[in-house]
């Protein structure tokens, strides 16, 4: 029952922090040595996380809370604390594992970059922040780490800063997620003043909201839940704040795998899970979560159909899958959401690393310029294929199990519409993955000769992480099957085996297979013309290609609105505010000029002015006494 290793959990983020400090202090001179240091640090973190997780699995240990006083003022007393639970230990393992693999992979992928140590420093800082986010025992610390992972994401998206697109994408990522952060911040402020004793730690939140004691009124609870959800929406790229995530693909691909697929974007889901008691206390909030999640899932999947950039397709896929997780939470199944988060982390990271491998080889991201890569890059093709199957939900790959869990939860939670949406999304998912896979790896090379010549398998340091992930993508689904709900029990502590629903199994498998088949027909066999839809409904394909014009809308409304307001206020500031200042100065000077006018050199004018003044003075002051 003791938690021997849990109390050292703070060391898990401490390793990458140390790596970050060393790399920052020593600067660029480290070069590849920096990469080694960072990788060792992440290895250490992974090992420790693994030990903690094993300890917890084996002994079913108690939650461990530790920390130090951090901020003391007046009513506020916030500690920098960490909490080790089954949930967090699971997340620790996922994060450190993916981080470790990405560290390794980047060794090859970033080999030629002069700023490789900067890259590793950023990654180390990100890993540390992400681990801090996972470990945080209260919302304030979580929020801090939440922002820190955001800024690391921002830094890494803009890693190739000389590209204007990277600059724009980084800025967009930061600002759009900040909209969500704002919601979270306000939620924290609300919680602070409504919680008894101004407690912000998760244990107290659990106590207050889980017992349904009504300490916090219903409307406030809903408000808090929704505001927290706004934060999650921003971070996890849910509609309507999803716009940053596809653009974030401007960053190096390992980063897309680590941050924008496996870990950070899942933080939104993690946040909701962490504060799930608040959501559960408000059915309205739950509905909103479910609907937003479902809508995002199908919405992003449809956009993914029409994209041509390999990473963007994967990005929209990520958005869509995160929508699944939200959907799961909205229908009340934490375990399903966490399960999907868990599996998704592996197969999506795998897909991104595979995409990175392809990009590394042929230096293009446009799937229309690829083709036939399967023959030249066997490992990449195989692992990518596994990832694609997992994502598409083909049994027995992990994605199938987790997706099945979600659909089951939706159906059991009496949300048939959400279930249908989920199934349709599964179909779209399989379709765009089939399109992606077949266009890239099957057929003949469509790119130019130079690209074709470059196309060869990546070095082992890149393929090994892919192989590891591929293995995980295959097996990780078995921790929770309809037959043995091991993960859910471990996480929530209650046995809630949902059993196998035939309808769900059939529907999801059918949808996935149908999608794959259609893709095969269109892009391999050629029986279906790929442009069958776009030629008949050009507006629809255009709408999808342009991502429903959301970016343009935001650009017009928010960016344009702000710019317009800024210009208007600038004019106001100059003309009215400063104008008033100038007017004051001018009127004093005008008085002075009046005086200069009086002084024309004529003594009699002076006298006249004086006598006039005297008359006025006498009349005004003495005269009033006489009438």
């Amino acid at each position, binding site marked *: 029952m003791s938690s021997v290793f849990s109390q050292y959990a703070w060391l898990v983020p401490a390793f990458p922090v140390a790596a970050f400090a060393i790399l920052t202090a020593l600067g660029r001179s480290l070069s590849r040595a920096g990469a080694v240091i960072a990788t060792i640090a992440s290895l250490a973190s992974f090992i420790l996380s693994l030990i903690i997780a094993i300890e917890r699995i084996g002994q079913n240990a108690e939650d461990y809370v530790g920390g130090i*006083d951090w901020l003391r003022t007046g009513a506020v007393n916030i500690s920098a604390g960490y909490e080790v639970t089954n949930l967090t230990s699971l997340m620790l393992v996922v994060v450190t594992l993916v981080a470790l693999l990405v560290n390794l992979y980047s060794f090859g992928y970033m080999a030629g970059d002069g700023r490789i140590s900067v890259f590793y420093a950023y990654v180390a800082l990100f890993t540390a922040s992400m681990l801090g986010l996972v470990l945080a025992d209260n919302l304030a610390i979580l929020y801090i780490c939440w922002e*820190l992972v955001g800024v690391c994401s921002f830094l890494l998206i803009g890693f190739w800063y*000389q590209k*204007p697109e990277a600059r724009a994408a980084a800025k967009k990522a930061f*600002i759009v997620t900040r909209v969500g952060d*704002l919601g979270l911040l306000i939620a924290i*402020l609300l919680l602070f003043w409504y919680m008894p004793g101004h407690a912000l730690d998760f244990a107290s939140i659990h106590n207050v909201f889980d017992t349904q004691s009504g300490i916090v009124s219903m409307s406030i609870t809903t408000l808090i839940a929704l505001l927290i959800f706004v934060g999650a929406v921003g971070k996890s790229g849910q509609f309507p704040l999803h716009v940053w995530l596809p653009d974030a693909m401007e960053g190096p691909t390992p980063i897309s795998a680590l941050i924008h697929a496996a870990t950070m974007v899942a933080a939104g889901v993690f946040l909701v899970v962490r504060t799930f008691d608040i959501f559960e206390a408000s059915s309205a909030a739950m509905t909103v979560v479910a609907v937003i999640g479902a809508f995002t899932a199908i919405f992003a999947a449809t956009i993914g159909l029409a994209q041509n950039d390999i990473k963007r397709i994967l990005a929209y896929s990520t958005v869509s899958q995160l929508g699944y997780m939200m959907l799961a939470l909205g229908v009340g199944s934490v375990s399903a959401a966490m399960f999907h988060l868990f599996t998704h982390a592996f197969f999506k990271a795998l897909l991104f690393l595979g995409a990175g491998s392809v990009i590394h080889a042929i230096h293009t991201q446009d799937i229309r310029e690829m083709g036939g890569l399967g023959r030249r890059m066997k490992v990449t093709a195989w692992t990518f294929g596994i990832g694609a199957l997992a994502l598409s939900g083909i049994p027995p790959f992990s994605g199938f199990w987790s997706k099945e869990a979600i659909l089951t939860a939706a159906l059991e939670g009496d949300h048939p519409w959400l279930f249908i949406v989920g199934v349709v999304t599964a179909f779209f998912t399989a379709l765009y993955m089939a399109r992606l896979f077949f266009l890239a790896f099957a057929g003949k090379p469509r790119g130019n000769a130079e690209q074709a010549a470059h196309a060869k398998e990546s070095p082992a340091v890149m393929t090994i992480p892919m192989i590891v992930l591929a293995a995980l993508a295959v097996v990780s689904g078995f921790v929770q099957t309809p037959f043995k709900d091991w993960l859910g029990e471990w996480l929530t502590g209650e046995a809630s085996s949902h059993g196998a629903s035939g309808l769900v199994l059939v529907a999801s498998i059918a949808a996935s297979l149908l999608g794959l088949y259609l893709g095969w027909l269109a892009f391999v066999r050629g029986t279906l013309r790929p442009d069958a839809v776009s030629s008949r409904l050009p507006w629809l394909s255009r709408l999808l290609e342009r991502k429903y014009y959301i970016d343009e809308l935001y650009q017009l409304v928010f960016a344009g609105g702000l710019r317009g307001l*800024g210009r208007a206020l*600038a004019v106001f*500031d100059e003309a009215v505010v400063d104008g008033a200042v100038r007017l004051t100065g001018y009127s004093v000077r005008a008085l002075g000029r009046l005086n200069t006018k009086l002084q024309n050199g004529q003594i009699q004018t002076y006298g006249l002015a004086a006598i006039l003044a005297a008359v006025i003075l006498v009349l005004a002051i003495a005269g009033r006494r006489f009438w």
Partner: protein
Amino acid sequence: MFANVPVLSLIIWLPLLGSLVVLLLPGRSGGAIRWAGISFTFVSMVLAFGLYASYLPLAGGGEFAEHGSWLSVPLNTEVMQDTSVTSYRLAFDYSLGVDGISMPLVLLTGIVASMASLASVHIFKRQKTYFSLFLLLQTGMYGVFLARDVIWFFIFFELTLIPMFFLIGIWGYYGREKAANRFLVYNGLGSAVMLLAFLILIATLGFASVQTDGGIELTFSGSYDTMLANLADPNAAAHQAGAWLLSDNLQWAAFILLLVAFGIKLPIFPFHTWMLKVHAEAPPPVVMIHSGILLKMGVYGLIRFAAFLLPAQLHSWSAVLAVLGVINILYGAVLACAQKEFKLVLAYSSISHMGIVLLGIASLNETGFEGAVYQAVSHGLISALLFLIVGSLHERTGTTRIDELGGLARAVPFTAGILLTAGLASLGLPGLSGFIGEFLSFLGLFSTMKALTAIGTIGVLLAAVYMLRSVLAMTYGPLPEKLAGLKEARFIETLPMVVLTAFIVLLGIYPSLLTDLMQHGFDGLLRELQTGVGG
């Protein structure tokens, strides 16, 4: 540590001594002048840190207080009417003190002034005059934060005005004279308004009576402690024969006058236009001081006098302050988004950040007050750092216009990195100091005015917009050809950058360093707000 050493006086007057020393050095010995200027600045900073080390929050800094009578002039020694008062005197005492509110700001002054002195080594034009004025300015700034007599406060306040006028007017950029004039007249107006309020307070709150054989001797003084004592015990004050009491109307007048006076300094919309010019035209080390410390004198004055001496007014006008704060935040932020000159972006961002201070003050609780001071300190460090970089960049490129710069991360990676860090700190990134001040202020105000706070937080979002827009435009993207040959910052430049960044990070990571200091600083005010006003 400082037993029997008048450490506060030393902190204040050593820079003045330095100023004289610099004046007496031969004009050609540039090295000696720089050396003297920097070392006198550092001595005060070291003393300030020593003070910090030996400061005990619980004791409230009482052991450091210094008091000496300076002058006491007879107002009337002849009995004219039949009262028991035999004589009236007006006393101006030399009175210094430090407490949880001034301690952080003294530290800030030490740090920023020292770093600005290092940044001043590039100034070669009339070096002697420069450093002598620079040191004189420090005397004024330390004095403002340490004075415990309103007249001395005013004197020190004005003492910052004159050196600043010269520093802007002689060493500034093209429009320096206009900026200097604007600065002088606008701030002069502020201090005039402040003086009127102080005189009202002296005449109504600042009296102490001594019973002598002949009768009662009534002494008016600017002593802050006397005022606080009279305020805390209105009944005893009412017994003072002859003195007239602070009526409601007068209290309001004094409060509004103080609000305007410190609002100009802070600045509060619509009194902000002067500081734009100063930001744009003054030499960077001077803007470091200006934006880093001088604006904080407004914060300090507002808390020290408007809040502590007139709690009832603060209480009933907290909503007004909050609205002003929100206006400041949004107005500054929106305008910062529309600027093309980086210095003006920073100027408007200062307006926005000072709005957060107002929110903290309007919260009327300890969290908010401490947030306000924290925000002041943090903004001081961050804007000093930003202007340090501005100076470094301007020296190399001759411009700080956003559209003329780009890709600096390639040309000067270190400077660009620090700039990015400072920008992130400015937009309130957790882990850096800016966040704590914002968080505490918002947290404090949220207890009373939820909707306003929520609107105010939009400023945090806009901060990200304008900061990233400008910083990324300067550092990221392709490097223009004409900037290809830029040289990285020299050691003497990087040192203050690193130090300021270190403090920003330190305060962001471990805020208790500062909040513990302020722990009992607001006790008196909170008591007043609870008992005096609530009842």
